[in-house]
């Protein structure tokens, strides 16, 4: 039975509003380590989320059965739960928070699971693992491929009808070098997921990357420890993705600002009164919510309640303008938000989320940024992250770093870390790289919510320079 027919069959429940969100996802992953095939995993998930509003309260019923009787029972449970919960509602909602939207979206990728060839894929990953075999000290040489295809069909009693096919691909690798001096890891790809397909990945480029990361892991074995001092910090996009994620994305989520997430993910140092006034960062800082960037990991047409997504500035010229939050949170706070009420799959209710949250490029070339630094460090590729529940005090570690001395990149150092506090840190943003330094990435596993949910998000950034940051190394 078609989804609309199922929806129509529930009309006698006389709910104030019902939506059905059918999610059918398929995944395929495989990995190789030390030139040994580690396994192929093929997954399939298919289920239905029924959202019911009664007396201004939403409740949800989720099932992976498509028997009409089961769906009906689930819808009835959701209706009764909404009525019961409406006696204790945190906030009352109306159809204003459920816009009427009709449309379709499909990821731009061409070669996905249907075009998967296990022999070719195995050969590619084996080749990458083998390319990392530069020296006996490279003791672990891993390569993986992951593809996901998620078809979502959303229909609602207000007339909304949205079909979205979001296909995602990632290829990654890592090399661990080990000697009596310790272990060092270099990796590529954990943050490079995309909505383009396998056609995006070039074997020669991937092989060159495999050789590079293995060489760098070996090189790090003999590097000196990162010094402990306050200095200028130049960050590559593959570290800035997580810096943006943790210290901009999460604190701007409106449900955190409202306190809904206090017991698990935490809340935010941002107050409702900060919107329009808080100088979040230096005037060079421009942050957008951009679901329209072709191929970026979390691009889409509409969120999971049917709100059409558009590009919006969250921070412009350093000033906080807008939060990441659903129409429900926007109503509760009387603040502007974006179309980002998203669920991990059919089995979770949608909550306030990031999607693509990007730092817009500036005007400085990489060379000019390096030249401008008397004493500093250039860090690349995230390896560790931690931040407090208000999203203030953070600490990040990177895989690879080089000192900058008198305007030149010099000595390689290992175990680079830095720490800071969110708003002061972003106000120390001194230079923003131009388009030639701008890279687009994606992270697969952003965790949040009670019940817990993971979701895919996109981040893009140029290289950026920060002044006077606390930097330190590993060791005791």
């Amino acid at each position: 039975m078609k989804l609309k027919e199922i929806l129509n069959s529930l009309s006698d429940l006389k709910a104030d509003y019902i939506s059905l969100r059918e999610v059918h996802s398929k995944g395929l992953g495989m990995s190789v380590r030390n030139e040994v095939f580690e396994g192929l995993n093929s997954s399939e998930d298919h289920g239905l989320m029924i959202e019911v509003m009664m007396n201004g309260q939403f409740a949800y019923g989720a099932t992976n059965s498509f028997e009409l009787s089961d769906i009906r029972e689930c819808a009835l449970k959701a209706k009764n739960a909404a009525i019961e919960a409406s006696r204790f509602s945190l906030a009352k909602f109306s159809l204003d928070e459920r816009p009427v939207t009709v449309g379709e979206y499909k990821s731009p990728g061409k070669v996905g699971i249907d075009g998967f060839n296990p022999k070719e894929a195995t050969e590619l990953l084996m080749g990458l693992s083998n390319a990392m075999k530069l020296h006996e000290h490279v003791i672990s040489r891993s390569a993986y491929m992951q593809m996901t295809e998620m078809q979502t069909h959303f229909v609602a009693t207000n007339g909304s009808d949205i079909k979205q096919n979001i296909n995602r691909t990632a290829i990654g690798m890592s090399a661990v070098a080990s000697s009596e001096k310790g272990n060092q890891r270099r990796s590529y790809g954990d943050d490079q997921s995309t909505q383009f397909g396998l056609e995006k990945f070039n074997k020669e480029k991937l092989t060159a990357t495999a050789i590079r990361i293995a060489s760098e892991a070996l090189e790090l074995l003999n590097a000196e420890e990162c010094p402990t001092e306050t200095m200028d910090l130049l960050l590559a996009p593959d570290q800035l993705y997580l810096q943006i994620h943790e210290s901009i994305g999460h604190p701007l989520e409106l449900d955190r600002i409202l306190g809904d997430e206090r017991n698990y993910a935490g809340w935010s140092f941002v107050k409702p009164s900060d919107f329009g006034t808080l100088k979040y960062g230096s005037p060079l800082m421009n942050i957008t919510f951009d679901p329209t960037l072709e191929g970026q990991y979390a691009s889409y047409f509409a969120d999971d309640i049917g709100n059409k997504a558009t590009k919006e500035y969250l921070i412009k010229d350093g000033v906080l303008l807008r939060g990441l939050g659903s129409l429900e949170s926007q109503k509760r706070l009387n603040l502007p938000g974006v179309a980002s009420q998203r669920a991990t799959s059919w089995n979770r209710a949608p909550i306030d989320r990031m999607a693509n949250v990007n730092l817009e490029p500036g005007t400085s070339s990489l060379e000019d940024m390096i030249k401008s630094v008397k004493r500093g460090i250039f860090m690349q590729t995230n390896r560790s992250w931690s931040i407090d529940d208000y999203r203030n005090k953070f600490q990040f570690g990177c895989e690879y770093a080089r000192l900058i001395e008198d305007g030149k990149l010099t000595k390689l150092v290992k175990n680079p870390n830095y720490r800071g506090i969110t708003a002061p840190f972003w106000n120390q943003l001194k230079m923003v790289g131009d388009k030639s330094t701008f890279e687009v990435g994606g992270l697969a596993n952003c965790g949040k919510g009670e019940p817990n949910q993971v979701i895919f998000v996109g981040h893009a950034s140029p290289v950026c320079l920060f002044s006077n940051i606390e930097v330190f190394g590993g060791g005791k």
Partner: protein
Amino acid sequence: MKALQSSYLEIFAKKVFNELKSDEALTLNFNGEETLFSRLSKAKVRQVTNLHQAFIDFAFIKGNKVINFNMPFRADEGDFSLALKKLAQAREWIAALPEDPYLVRPKYYGVTKEENLNSLPKNEEMMGQVLDFAGNVDLAGVFSSGDVVRATINSEGQFHWFKTRNFYLDYSLYNEKQKAVKSLYAGSEWNSDDLRRNIKDAEYKLGLMNRDSKKVARGDYRVYLAPSAVNELMGTLSWGGVSMAAHQQGSGSLKDLWQKKKVMSPKFTLKEDYSLGLSPRFNEAGELAHPEMMLIEKGEFRNFLISTRTANEYKLESNNASDWESMRSPVISTGDLSRDDIYKELGTGLYVSDLHYLNWSDRETARITGMTRYACFWVENGEIVSPIEDLRFDESYYNIFGDALERVTNFAEVSPSTGSYFQRDVGGSKAPGVLLSQFKFTL
């Protein structure tokens, strides 16, 4: 929900096993739940979800090759036809795959069936009591209840079934200054008096948070870590800390302990202990872990967790760990510090109830970073002076459970897992509090 009855899985599995050819074998891992989640804030209801789900992971072996796939399980006729379709796809793909030298073949590991299905009040009744007892206090968190199933069945005749019915209220209370205390009421038998007492205890602790917060400067301090903070430390140690594969592959974080270059304190003992009763002993392959296994005994290395796959690769003996070689039922031994003496023995320093967002800052030296969270206090001369503003720490396990470990409490607290990524977790850990002579705060 009929999919959560063992007979449906057994009938389905038998039909699928009958389709196997002579060089084929199959292990099925079943996961299912029927759950209510109610998301709460300000002691009101934000969202309610009733969830019914079940799915099966297949490990299909043909010759010396393996392929893994999964499918939803609905306990209807469609299951078998979908399984046949997936088997056909697997046979096609597996022909193109290389052999797996570390293959774990299914074996007969016996038949067990465990069901803990106590009667619980209706969901709306339990929820009503939670909101009633919370009254006007600002409560945020999640209430969850229902049935969870884990099972494994293979073509060699092995079958393990674990079904439990339980609930938890994972919550925190907030005062007007937005300082908070954390608590948990969980179990398989509902007791209104216990729930009321749990919330009242948390409210009492919240009263202590009304004093002005002290901003503590970075530096080294004497610290008492309460059991919930120690349980948090166990969680991070499970992330490559006690995995043999992680250590063999250069990403382990207790290398020096393993290689006997370092020891921890004789007061520190860590083991896997399934008598905790929160986690099934069988792993994904149906292998049964030993009821109790020492990992670190009196500060010295005893065992890492070794899955059969890791054992095959490195020619070691498996201790039937899970694929991820993470702890499933960790317990830290208690010591001799009584509850009444904690503040006196701490003297002047920090009482830390919870830790938050831990991550390795340097695996080579077992250094972790993270934040203090919830009810943490500055203590002077054995008396609580004030709550503190949250602090970042960066410290090594070799210090926490080694040189700096002065005392361990004579009581321990169980922390049942309340995780629910993809599905409601089972499992948990049990830890005492620890008194440390030195703990490094960095921001």
